[in-house]
């Protein structure tokens, strides 16, 4: 048995257990900040180690667990996201009334689940990966029990996610019935055209659509995003979505193309719906977390256009876009954390006049939002360019046009926030205190967004290498 393939996953899991044990050894009242730093240091170390693992290809456990550049790229995306989220959640965690160490533990568990998803090459591994991630999120979402909103969000997420995975499981059972096996390779050969394949495939797709929040499977997202603690929302928005795409792209690239059904049509519909609903529903939102939720729905729509072509150019766009989305997202949520700590709220009114109280944060927020809107020269523009041009090359001109139009619309609500920050008057004149980790995270995220927009070459190269390993 080759446990080297599982090295990253096991290391993160061990890190989590280490924190759990260390927590028991510490005084009950003591701050758990050290444990947060431990998590950050551990994850950063792993990220550095993982950089050397490109080019190591292989299938393990009878081909059920893949180690390739594609999985590695995603794992690095998760690691980067988790590191940054840990960094700007240090203060949030310090202010939790209880169970502070467990926060990091569960966050790391979620990362393990995402990593497993990226490597999964059979339905069981896929399912367990999804559930490990989702379970950690159930608890993290409901973490702030003194706010029943948080609990309500957790319950909604639990009920809907469980229902979605039940539907997905039923679909998987039908696929198993047709092919008689569970590994992707066997499914690719064994899936013959039949009604069961239609129903099973659609059910599996529904499960994925839930994870990536594509309408009408997106309804949980705004409510849960609003109710969850901000760092959790950030990780949910990027990690859960990225992991969903990681698994979905693999399945749709390896398993379904041979079946002869027009799967891209469904992806097209989901993509169009996501762009429409996400961008239009975001306009009237006043709560920034809700607005970002709808915006993340729209991002899922953009990302789905990359899957339409079924070729590696589109997948490359997906990889690239997810990585830069992590940075834009971290930037926005880090700023939101600071604002929320100051004002105890996250509405557009709470952020008004931020440019005068915390100019750096205002700039970071502006850059992050404009990157999501796809304004050049920020990274989001390049990402959208990759995605849409792959769709156009595959003959889906109109979805790209729709994407363009709705990106223009999205500028409107993003700019509303910018307007409020720069042109609004602050709601109070208390001095604005920004914790150092939050500032560091925010500035780093902005620098990355700018750098990747101005010079996207290396990342796009990396994404291309990674995408190629899916299409052997």
């Amino acid at each position, binding site marked *: 048995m080759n446990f080297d393939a599982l090295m990253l996953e096991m290391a993160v899991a061990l890190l989590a257990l280490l924190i*759990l044990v260390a927590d028991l050894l510490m005084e009950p009242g003591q701050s758990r900040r050290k444990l947060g730093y431990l998590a950050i240091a551990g994850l950063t170390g792993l990220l550095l180690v993982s950089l050397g693992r490109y080019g190591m290809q292989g299938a393990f456990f009878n081909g059920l667990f893949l180690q390739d550049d594609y999985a590695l790229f995603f794992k690095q995306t998760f690691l980067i996201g988790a590191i940054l989220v840990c960094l700007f959640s240090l203060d949030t965690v310090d202010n939790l009334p*209880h*169970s502070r160490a467990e926060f990091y533990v*569960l966050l790391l*568990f979620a990362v393990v*689940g995402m990593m497993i998803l990226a490597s999964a090459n059979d339905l069981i591994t896929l399912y367990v990966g999804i559930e490990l991630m989702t*379970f950690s999120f159930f*608890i993290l979402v409901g973490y702030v029990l003194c706010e029943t909103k948080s609990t309500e969000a957790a319950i909604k997420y639990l009920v809907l996610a469980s229902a979605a995975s039940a539907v997905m499981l039923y679909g998987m059972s039908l696929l198993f*019935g047709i092919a008689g096996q569970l590994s992707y390779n066997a499914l690719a050969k064994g899936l013959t055209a*039949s009604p069961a394949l239609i129903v099973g495939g659609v059910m599996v797709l529904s499960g994925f659509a839930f994870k990536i929040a594509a309408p009408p499977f997106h309804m949980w997202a705004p409510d849960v995003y609003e109710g969850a603690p901000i760092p959790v929302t950030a990780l949910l928005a990027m990690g859960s979505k990225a992991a969903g795409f990681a698994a979905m792209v693999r399945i749709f690239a390896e398993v379904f193309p041979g079946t002869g059904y027009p799967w891209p049509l469904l992806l097209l519909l989901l993509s169009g719906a996501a762009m429409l609903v996400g961008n239009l529903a975001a306009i009237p939102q006043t709560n920034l977390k809700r607005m970002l939720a709808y915006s993340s729905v729209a991002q899922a729509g953009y990302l789905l256009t990359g899957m339409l072509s079924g070729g590696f150019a589109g997948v490359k766009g997906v990889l690239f876009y997810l990585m830069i989305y992590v940075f834009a997202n971290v930037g926005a949520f880090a700023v939101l954390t600071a604002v929320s700590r100051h004002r105890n709220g996250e509405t557009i009114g709470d952020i008004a006049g931020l440019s005068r109280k915390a100019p750096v944060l205002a700039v970071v927020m502006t850059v992050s939002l404009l990157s999501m809107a796809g304004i050049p020269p920020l990274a989001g523009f390049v990402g959208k360019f990759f995605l849409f041009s792959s769709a156009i090359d595959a003959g889906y001109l109109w979805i790209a046009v729709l994407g363009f139009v709705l990106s223009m619309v999205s500028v409107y609500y993003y700019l509303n926030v910018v307007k409020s920050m720069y042109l609004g008057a602050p709601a109070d004149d208390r001095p604005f205190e920004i914790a150092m980790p939050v500032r560091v995270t925010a500035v780093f995220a902005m620098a990355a967004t700018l750098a990747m927009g101005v010079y996207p070459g290396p990342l796009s190269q990396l994404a291309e290498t990674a995408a190629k390993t899916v299409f052997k």
Partner: protein
Amino acid sequence: MENGGLMHTLAFFLLSGITLAAAMGVVFKRNLVHSAFLLSVTFLGVAGLYMTLQAEFMAAVQALVYSGAVAVLVVIGVMLTHRQQMSRSNPPNKMLLVGALAALSVVGAIVWAILATPWKVGKGSVVTAGDIGRRFLTDFAPPFEAVALLLLAALIGAVVLFKGGKAQS
């Protein structure tokens, strides 16, 4: 139980009848305690169906984990959260029609899939507990470890959530 015999047929209909009837009870009963106990019966019925499929190990796990642990957990949950008015503790909401429509259309799609698909029914194979165990420790080692983490996460979660609930009240 051998496949295809009269006994098998009888057992199948009996067990599936019990299972479905109990499941209907779970869904339609207005008393949550009744629903909880009928859920246990459903699980046992499913365990019986596994027996007719010669999946004894599965049946055992089903009976132990589900009927035992899960059902007990549910009952505890019922006890914790509802203290009075048990007879009306499990009412339906206002979307019976929509719910029925949605459920029926999904079931319709599934039934179409089941009936219209030419399943390749082979001679069938019986799985032993040993097979399962071996697979757990070889091919499926990654998910096996992941599920261990998942149970740990659930444990931590339950503790966190219960503890938090107390701290605040």
